């Protein structure tokens, strides 16, 4: 299933938050289409920053990131938003669900307020995904009334609703028990496999790491570059 052609190409990027000592230097990184990669490293080594750079949320100060043949630096702010909306699925550590909205509206939020996604196909996929993770009966319930496990499933469904080419997952199971963690990883990996989507997931958990075909230790990558 996995294609050797890279979907993500990182070349000599440097990034530093204003006023921060920490600096992310990554000379080279290539991720193949359909790859399922775990990104590991100690806390504060820049894993989340890397995901934010790859997804275009932050802009690199030096270097180039190319995703699906598109150089992110060539895109305008609007272009980056559209690209992210169309091509990426993002699962945040803190879920980032909108509390006053129903489960259905949360999952469809990026579709409703996006520009490039066909709402009809997304709505058809909504039933499929929510049935699969066992939250179809909660579609009209407000997110604020869900358990953490249910919230995480909603966040995963939201990231997968538009069949993204790349799924970024930032410690998606950090606060979940092993059973719920397994459900979430199974869903992410199987959906990615069936759509030939690439997965880049930050995780510390050994059980979770074992589920990935490829493990990228960010600190090693940066040290190699330094040496």
């Amino acid at each position: 299933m996995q294609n050797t052609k890279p979907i993500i190409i990182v070349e000599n990027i440097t990034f530093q938050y204003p006023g921060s000592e920490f600096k992310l230097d990554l000379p080279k990184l290539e991720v193949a289409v359909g790859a399922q990669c775990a990104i590991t490293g100690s806390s504060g080594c820049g894993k989340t920053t890397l995901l934010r750079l790859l997804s275009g949320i932050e802009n690199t100060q030096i270097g180039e990131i190319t995703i699906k043949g598109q150089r992110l630096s060539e895109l305008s702010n609007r272009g980056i938003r559209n690209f992210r909306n169309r091509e990426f699925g993002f699962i945040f550590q803190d879920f980032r669900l909108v509390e006053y909205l129903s489960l259905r509206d949360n999952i469809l939020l990026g579709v409703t307020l996006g520009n490039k996604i066909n709402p009809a196909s997304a709505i058809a996929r909504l039933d499929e995904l929510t049935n699969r993770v066992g939250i179809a009966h909660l579609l009209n319930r407000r997110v604020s009334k869900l358990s953490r496990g249910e919230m995480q499933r909603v966040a995963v469904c939201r990231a997968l609703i538009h069949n993204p080419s790349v799924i970024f997952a930032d410690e998606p199971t950090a606060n979940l028990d092993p059973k719920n963690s397994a459900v979430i990883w199974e869903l992410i990996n199987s959906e990615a496999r069936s759509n030939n989507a690439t997965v880049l997931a930050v995780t510390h958990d050994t059980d979770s790491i074992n589920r990935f075909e490829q493990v990228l230790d960010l600190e090693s990558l940066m040290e190699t570059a330094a040496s």
Partner: protein
Amino acid sequence: MNQLFAIIRLAWAYLTSHRKQSVAILIAISLAVSLPIVASNIVRQYLQTLDTRSGNPPVMLSPRGSRFDAVLKVQYFLGESLPSLQWQDVTHITTNKSLRCIPVHLLHTANAQATPVIGTVRDYFTVRDLNLHSGHMFAQAGECVVGALVNVSDDVLQTDISNPFDLSAAPPLILTVVGRLQPSGTPDDQGVFVSLDTAWILDGYGHGHDIADQGTAAANSSVLSAATDGHRPNESIRTIDEANRHKIHFHGNPNLYPISAVLIWPETNRDQVVLEGNYINHKSLQVLRPDVEIDTIMRYVFQMNTILQRIFLLLGSVTLLLIAVIIFQSLNARKHDLETMKLLGCSRLQVFKLLGTELFLLLIGSALLTVVVTAALIATLPSLESLL
């Protein structure tokens, strides 16, 4: 289209989940808009009412005193009772054949002081252009004709006790309603009209009783205290009908019976000028022009209206400022949600559409509430006349 509905649903979800904030904004906007509308509506109605009879009659004769009070009482039945002139003043002025004179007696009320009882002559209806809707004009003592808006049950209407603290005061009468006037859009719609005889019976100058019931001598506080034949029967007739009408009689000197004012229509301007000249130095009576007094009142009302509108403008500005603060604060509180939309790659335009839709729904709701509040206030608020 589907996307539009979806955005409306998202906006609705936000507004309903922040119910208190949304309701506060709705109420603030609708009150800020409806109060000035209601106020100017009341003022307009008041000015219209004032205007209906500002020049009709051209002049009136009243006891010397506050000209505003006299005009408001005689033309609009507003305010407290005025001092009275005497019937002999009326007979004196009616000797002048170039003046059409209509006496009015305005000392009594009915329906717990909500309805003025106007003692007058039948010509009043002609000069005021009042027509009967049903029944006939009053012809005898104890009968009344009611204005179009007066509440009546069982075709009778009881007058109010003239002074509950005065045991010697004449008892109230139960008037027989013999006719109802067509609506005229004037204060007459709220009035009960009786003959002068009936009005004087209400004063206590006339009454009916059995011959044997001579009761007691008129008390010092009684209107008949100066009359040599005055007395207070133990049981006066309360309802005048065919069986007891012959028992009604009057005491005292009729020339001294009270009249509140005389409405006067001079034949020519010259007659009016002469009349005004005749009374210019009169010790106890004055001739005044209602239109002049009403113009002065209207100027006051206009000034008050202007002040009110400025106050409302100021309040409206403060309200808008507060709403802007609320919206700004709510945007601040939603920073996390808006950031999430950005992270999901939501279009900036669509996010603006969402926020705009929320504001639009609030404005639509406010407009609907404004219509309801305005209509309810206009329908239920007592008119300015009754407030006065």
